[in-house]
């Protein structure tokens, strides 16, 4: 396969490494560059007398380098990947050097071992039943303690919410940080980290505009709905119970999810990848869509200190394999199983299964009816033109466009409808540059107030000369 610049960049998680890799991604310092279909390698002159040996297993992709860096990929690996994307003709030798084959073989063996290991799960280790029973008893005791703590924490939170309502939202404006922090800390102590996160966000609403009391009231009300739901947990159906437990922050182990939930096989296309930095932690949110099922999935992974993400996802990449969705009322978050890379979408054409605004809002309302707490809903929206207005960017739908709306009876020929785009000014201009004033297909997250656009495709893709 050929690699694009964008894909190469997506694999280099650390911005510092990317920058240093960019500087190194020129032939002067490299020797013995080569590649096969599944690997690439080269030797890069560094400060020492011996050049560093850098290799990439493209099936992973995985990186190897003889330099002392702890980051994966290191700047040499990043540079080699960029070179591969930019000037594959430079990687001209085709026989892998011995050090590379050795590494590739070792990787192969490790992977086989891993497969073997997963194939014989929990081989009965002649455990005396007594210890097992004791472990079970301890587990139940921990579980009971946890339940008590959580009950106490939720009741405290209810009292705190009632106090706020009694004193009025206007009074919260003068509260110090500790007012919110203390409540959040108590929730964490009571093993309710999900609720703690919601409480921590409350004071930040004050900085989001003059209408903060309305936002705050809405957020408090939604939080209270969650409190009520939690207090009546035993009365809920199983999937609702799962949902509420995840929302308050009861951790669910990936292995348990994969063991209890059905795996959904499909060909998954990556619609949007966004990464955010929090200190040394990189969070990557990937929205995927199944070709057959049409289902959206959100895969969130973390990388610490420049390490690679567990699942190497490329922008516009397609992957055959299974996803397992977290249980709940509205399964969106998913865990990838073994995914096989199928290449990237040709010419970045727009994905299928898009809809107009009326259908989006209909589906969104339906989803809220099932699960009122989710913050963003995946939206693959078609027919809108991004337009700058005095109130910010809007997605304007010309009258009589947008498929389902037009057929929906009432013809409003002299009006257009518009929805708000929640993006920075330059991204709005970028969408407009792609659109040229024509309708776009946009994938983004619908927040209930507007669309946070993530990618846009022009209906008529720009001609690419090759």
């Amino acid at each position: 396969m050929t690699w694009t610049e964008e894909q190469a960049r997506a694999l280099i998680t650390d911005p510092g490494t990317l920058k240093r890799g960019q500087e190194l991604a020129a032939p002067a310092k490299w020797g013995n560059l080569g590649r096969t279909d599944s690997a690439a390698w080269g030797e890069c002159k560094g400060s020492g007398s011996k050049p560093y040996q850098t290799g990439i297993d493209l099936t992973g992709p995985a990186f190897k380098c003889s330099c002392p860096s702890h980051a994966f990929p290191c700047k040499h690996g990043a540079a080699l990947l960029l070179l591969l994307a930019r000037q594959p003709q430079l990687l001209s030798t085709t026989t892998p050097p011995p050090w590379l084959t050795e590494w590739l073989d070792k990787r192969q063996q490790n992977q086989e071992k891993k497969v073997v290991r997963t194939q014989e799960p929990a081989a009965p280790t002649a455990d005396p039943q007594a210890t097992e029973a004791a472990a079970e008893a301890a587990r139940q005791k921990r579980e009971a303690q946890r339940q008590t703590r959580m009950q106490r924490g939720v009741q405290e939170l209810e009292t705190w919410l009632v106090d706020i309502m009694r004193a009025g939202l206007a009074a919260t404006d003068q509260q110090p940080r500790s007012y919110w922090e203390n409540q959040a800390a108590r929730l964490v102590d009571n093993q309710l980290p999900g609720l703690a996160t919601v409480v921590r966000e409350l004071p930040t609403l004050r900085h989001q505009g003059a209408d903060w009391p309305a936002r705050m009231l809405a957020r408090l009300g939604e939080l209270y709905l969650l409190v009520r739901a939690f207090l009546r947990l035993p009365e809920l159906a199983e999937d609702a119970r799962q949902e509420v437990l995840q929302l308050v922050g009861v951790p669910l182990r990936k292995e348990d999810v994969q063991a209890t939930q059905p795996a959904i096989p499909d060909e998954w296309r990556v619609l949007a990848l966004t990464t955010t930095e929090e200190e040394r932690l990189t969070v990557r949110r990937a929205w995927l869509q199944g070709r057959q099922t049409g289902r959206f999935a959100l895969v969130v992974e973390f990388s610490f200190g420049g390490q690679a993400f567990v699942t190497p996802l490329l922008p516009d990449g397609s992957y055959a394999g299974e996803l397992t969705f977290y249980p709940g009322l509205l399964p969106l978050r998913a865990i990838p199983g073994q995914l096989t890379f199928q290449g990237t979408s040709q010419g970045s054409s727009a994905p299928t299964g898009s809809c107009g605004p009326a259908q989006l809002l209909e589906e969104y309302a339906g989803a809220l009816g099932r699960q009122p707490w989710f913050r963003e809903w995946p939206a693959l929206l078609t027919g809108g033109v991004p337009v700058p207005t005095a109130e910010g960017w809007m997605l304007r739908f010309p009258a009589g466009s947008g498929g389902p709306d037009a057929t929906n009876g009432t013809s409003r020929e002299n009006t257009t409808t518009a929805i708000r785009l929640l993006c920075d000014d330059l991204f709005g201009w970028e969408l407009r540059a792609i659109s040229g004033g024509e309708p776009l297909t946009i994938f983004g997250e619908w927040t209930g107030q507007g669309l946070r656009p993530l990618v846009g495709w022009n209906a008529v893709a720009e001609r690419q000369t090759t």
Partner: protein
Amino acid sequence: MPESPTSSPTLRPAADWQRLLRVALLGTRQSPDELPAVPGFALPDPTPEHREKHALLTAGVLSTIRKAGYQPIVAAASLAAVAPPETQADLGPNGTQLLQQLLEGQYPELLPEFLSALADNQRRAPHQLLVLLLEHARSRPALHRAAAAVLGQRGAWLAAQNPAWQALLAASEQATEETAWETGTIGQRALYLEALRRREPAHARELLAAVLPQEPARHQAQLLATLQSQLSSDDTPLLEQYLTAKSKEVRQTVMPLLVRLPDAPLVEQLWQRAEPLVRLKTGLLSKKLLVELPATDWDKTWLLDGIEQKDGRFQGEKAAVLGQLLSLIPPRRWADHWHLTPAKILDRAADTEWAALLLTAWAEAAVLHQDATWAEALLEWFYEQPRKQLSTLPTAGLAQLLPPGRLTSVVLPLLNATPHLHPEVRWLPLLQLVPAPWPEHLTHRVVEVLRDTLSKPAELYRIQYAAGQLLEYMARVVPAAQYRLCAEPLQPLLQDVPYLHNSVVRLLNTLHFRQQLAEVLLE
């Protein structure tokens, strides 16, 4: 949790929300107002803290209802402005990726030249890079014109909609914009006049003559300078009028223009004054130059001939007068007068006690009158051997006058005479005046010299600065096609050139990048 309500006539989400918000702001303790109720969502009556919990529950339900009931904004249909179709091909995928690297700040010195090359090849920036390009060029006025030329239809359409980018579009049209002349800055007005001068020299002169009297001196100088294109004897009256201007800046702008006019009467006057001061004495065996300073001191009458009382290039009042005379008269006049080649004249001049004055003045004159023969003679003479007495000669100006290739044939013999690099080597400054594109045999020889010098590690620290400068200059002027010519001898040295490692890498990488830039134009 109770079931969702089916549509109920009493539910008014907007109004109810406002009522609830009023109560919530003040707090339930202070606000006795009745709370709105959502049918189907009610708490059992005797609950403790009933009022607060009721408010919270209603807030949660109403907020969800309001989100679910989101209505798109309805606006009057406006005329849909659609971008016109493109008329040029965009860059291919590799070109797109290179342009992105340039716009992200790699090899910043190569961007202007690449944008011009794009425009020359009738190519445009791809749509997905337009915002990056416009934002990059926005704060760099020097790039405005080059960027505007590769926007394509889409980019022009886009830039016209964003006030931050409109200035950039203006750069491409500025020259034809009549309003720029009426209301623009002095820079824009000079640009307008310059363009007009190329098309209609007479009209431009009329406009200029009309506004000059009201302008401050600095603007007068800047606007008068536009006369240098299409200069003709029709301009004489206007120029002469400002020869005696109060401002030295204006006089110094007008003077060089006047002496460049064909058969300018001014040159005749200057010649009459200068000729008696520099005489050729023909002896039996040799010819000698005899130089005299003017007999009388400078007075105001000299000003009528454009000679200032002081001139920074020449020391002493009388010497300054002679120096100015010589630097204004076309130098070929002396060669014709004495029937001597420039080289012979320079040799004679070097033997006089006024050598520095004569050579500086003739070099200035050669630059002013664009005399390539004299320029070459001066450069050859200057670099032939160390000329201690002359520290400053306008070498860059002289070098520019030489036809391509001539400068190389001046440099190469010097290079062969001292084929190693050290900071004082004679050919080094001249080599760094050889413009792009360097011919292959020059690059070849310079790389050979570099390789030999860099192989002697003991010397490296001494030549670090000089060699670094040379390598940086080469990255700009060596044609990208000569990458191999440089890489093959230099790359093996990388391991052992501690002080110059980065400079060599940068030269090779830049050449390689330029090679790719050239390739993507054909992609």
